[in-house]
């Protein structure tokens, strides 16, 4: 359609002009000291030149414990690579809570991003979204981050393995490949407790029907075997049924640690670890630590607390500070903070480190004595 083709660029030009005016130094001078954004956001929360924000367009609760949000990011959002995550800031009872989620939609579209969030027990943000998300809601949206993504040069054969909510980044990879017309073989192996826990069941089955190069196997771990004989947790039989020559594939796996451990062991046994990319997707169990009796000093804020055994991120928040953070599980590194001096326990491994002028992740570190942080 010629009309449509000419309309789009002129709309883009108008948008660029608008942005140029809004970010001009004259307007900045007129809106000092607050800045243009503080006036724009009064009109609509997603109007912002400097902060990524998204509006929820559609909400679906497709399985017993998930919510799928179709969102429209503002122009500040630069898009993502299939498999990466974004930090989402949701205001709950007046407090902004930030978590990391991997978009499930195909990369390449910056105007629409799909997020599927699984609620888990005690999960403040996931339960809130599962219960209260509705169209018209806004949230903060960071730039995408993470090394787990489809390489720029697409591999010919790709194997995707996921469990539970780990499906989102690998689904983004699958959808991206299909949108690009990828012709090579794609295997998709997914684990979920039952059909009622599987938000993408219909879509995956349709994709497998319509695309001969896509082989799909889903194991419902709490249900009997399907016609392929797929049942239970990850096993050699599953791999053989889907991709017997899995060494020929570039493999992307995302899910809880037990699945990833089994996959890693298999790939290591075959000597093909270099073709395996993994991302852990469930909050790791933090090794509980008793209060060390030490003092935590947040040097930049001039605040001091005595260690209560919680992570440094939790202790900083309890002291009224607001350190930048994201996943709260040691993945995204948003909460990396400099330790001037101190003894710190890694809450994932239990390792105790004495640090001088070193960096730690606040969300997975707890004091093992006195700690002084640049915070």
């Amino acid at each position: 359609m010629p009309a449509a083709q000419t309309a789009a660029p002129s709309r883009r030009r108008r948008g660029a002009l608008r942005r140029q005016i809004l970010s001009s130094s004259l307007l900045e001078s007129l809106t000092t000291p607050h800045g243009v954004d503080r006036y724009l956001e009064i009109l609509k929360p997603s109007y912002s030149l400097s902060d990524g924000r998204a509006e929820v367009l559609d909400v679906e609760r497709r399985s017993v414990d998930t919510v799928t949000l179709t969102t429209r990011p503002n122009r500040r959002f630069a898009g993502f690579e299939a498999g990466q995550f974004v930090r989402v800031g949701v205001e709950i009872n007046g407090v902004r809570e930030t978590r990391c989620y991997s978009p499930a939609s195909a990369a390449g579209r910056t105007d629409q991003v799909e997020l599927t969030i699984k609620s888990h027990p005690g999960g403040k943000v996931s339960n809130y979204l599962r219960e209260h998300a509705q169209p018209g809601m806004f949230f903060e949206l960071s730039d995408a981050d993470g090394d787990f993504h489809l390489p720029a040069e697409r591999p010919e054969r790709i194997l995707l393995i996921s469990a539970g909510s780990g499906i989102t980044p690998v689904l983004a990879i699958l959808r991206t490949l299909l949108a690009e017309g990828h012709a090579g073989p794609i295997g998709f192996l997914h684990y979920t407790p039952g059909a009622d826990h599987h938000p993408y069941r219909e879509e995956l089955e349709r994709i497998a029907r319509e695309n001969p190069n896509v082989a799909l196997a889903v194991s419902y771990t709490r249900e009997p075997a399907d016609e392929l004989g797929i049942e239970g947790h990850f096993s050699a039989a599953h791999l053989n049924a889907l991709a017997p020559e899995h060494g020929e594939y570039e493999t992307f796996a995302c899910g809880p640690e037990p699945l990833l451990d089994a996959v890693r062991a298999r790939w290591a046994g075959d000597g093909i670890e270099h073709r395996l990319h993994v991302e852990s997707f469930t909050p790791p169990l933090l090794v509980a630590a008793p209060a060390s009796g030490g003092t935590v000093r947040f040097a930049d804020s001039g605040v001091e607390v005595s260690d209560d055994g919680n992570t440094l991120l939790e202790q900083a928040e309890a002291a009224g500070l607001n350190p930048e953070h994201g996943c709260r599980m040691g993945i995204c590194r948003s909460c990396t903070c400099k330790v001037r001096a101190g003894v710190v326990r890694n809450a994932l491994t239990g390792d105790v480190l004495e640090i001088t002028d070193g960096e730690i992740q606040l969300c997975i570190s707890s004091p093992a004595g006195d700690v002084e942080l640049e915070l």
Partner: protein
Amino acid sequence: MTQTTHTDPRTLTPSQIESFGAELEAIRDKHMADLGERDARYIRSIIKAQRGLEVAGRGLLFFGFLPPAWLGGTAALAVSKILDNMEIGHNVMHGQYDWMRDPGLSSKGFEWDTACPGDQWRHSHNYMHHTHTNIHGKDRDIGYGILRMSEEQEWRPYYLGNPLYATLLATFFQYGVAFHDLETERIAAGETTWAEKKPILDGIIKKMRRQLAKDYVFFPLLAGPGAPFVLAGNATANLSRNLWSFMIIFCGHFPDGVEEFTEEECENETRGQWYYRQLLGSANLTGGKLFHIMSGNLSFQVEHHLFPDIPAHRYAEISVEVSEICARYGIPYNSGPLAKQFGSVVKKIFRLALPDRKPEPKAQRLSDPLEPERPAERGLIPA
């Protein structure tokens, strides 16, 4: 009524002061645990009103050649600046909304529509004034280094100009506040040097230049031939804000009945004694809801000094609890209407312009006029 209770606080034993402090601490804990949606909605609605009034005011001033538009625009802009400085800026920079983790409402990052740079204010006000409230030699808000607001400041012929200086300070209050941190009186006394204060001065000049350019260059120029109307409107709005904030702020610590303290009295203060000093050193203003919003809830100066980081819109309800506690302990709770409180401040400004008529013993001077026998200690020093 300036004082609602007249029991002699001297009768408070150290343990009573501590249990008084514990009751206040309990109020604090209760409200801190209850922070949430309600507070977020409140501050955002004020911000929305302020931004709306500002845009409307500046828009109307472009038609300032029409007298109703000039009046309406100037009034809207004045209200916007008052809200921005008092109910939003002052309170946000106290950290009242830090728990929300919204960078736009963070005490560390907030900047307000006035000459004083936010980071300097956070030091001179949040720390110096709120920690050392009404302590001579420490709280520089007593007289702002210009005025004589206390008998404790020795009279000099310079202070004959007290009423004149006060009028000038009120007129240019935003600059008075901005230059406050320069501590010019300490430079004059040789305690510090201009060189040491250079970074502070640079910060003030940078902020002031932006503020002046906005109100007196860019917006007037945009109005073309209407420039004089815009300029006059902006100047009037700034002046109104200056006079109003001066009046409210001077009613916080200088009306009759507000107590002052010496450094010795406050050495090794306990938490209970600190609360006690904050209470005796502050005074409230009575009025309607709109009045409280327009005063940034500094009309609840007592509650603000007890709980500077609790969202100020809660002070009205907290004041009911605090005055009840004060009544029980027989501690004076200073509160009165604006005309009366400000009247007593003006009287003090004039009275202190002249040398003290007859030097009274300290015990008499510090006492409540209605309780002439009250001694100075007020139970602040554990017996």
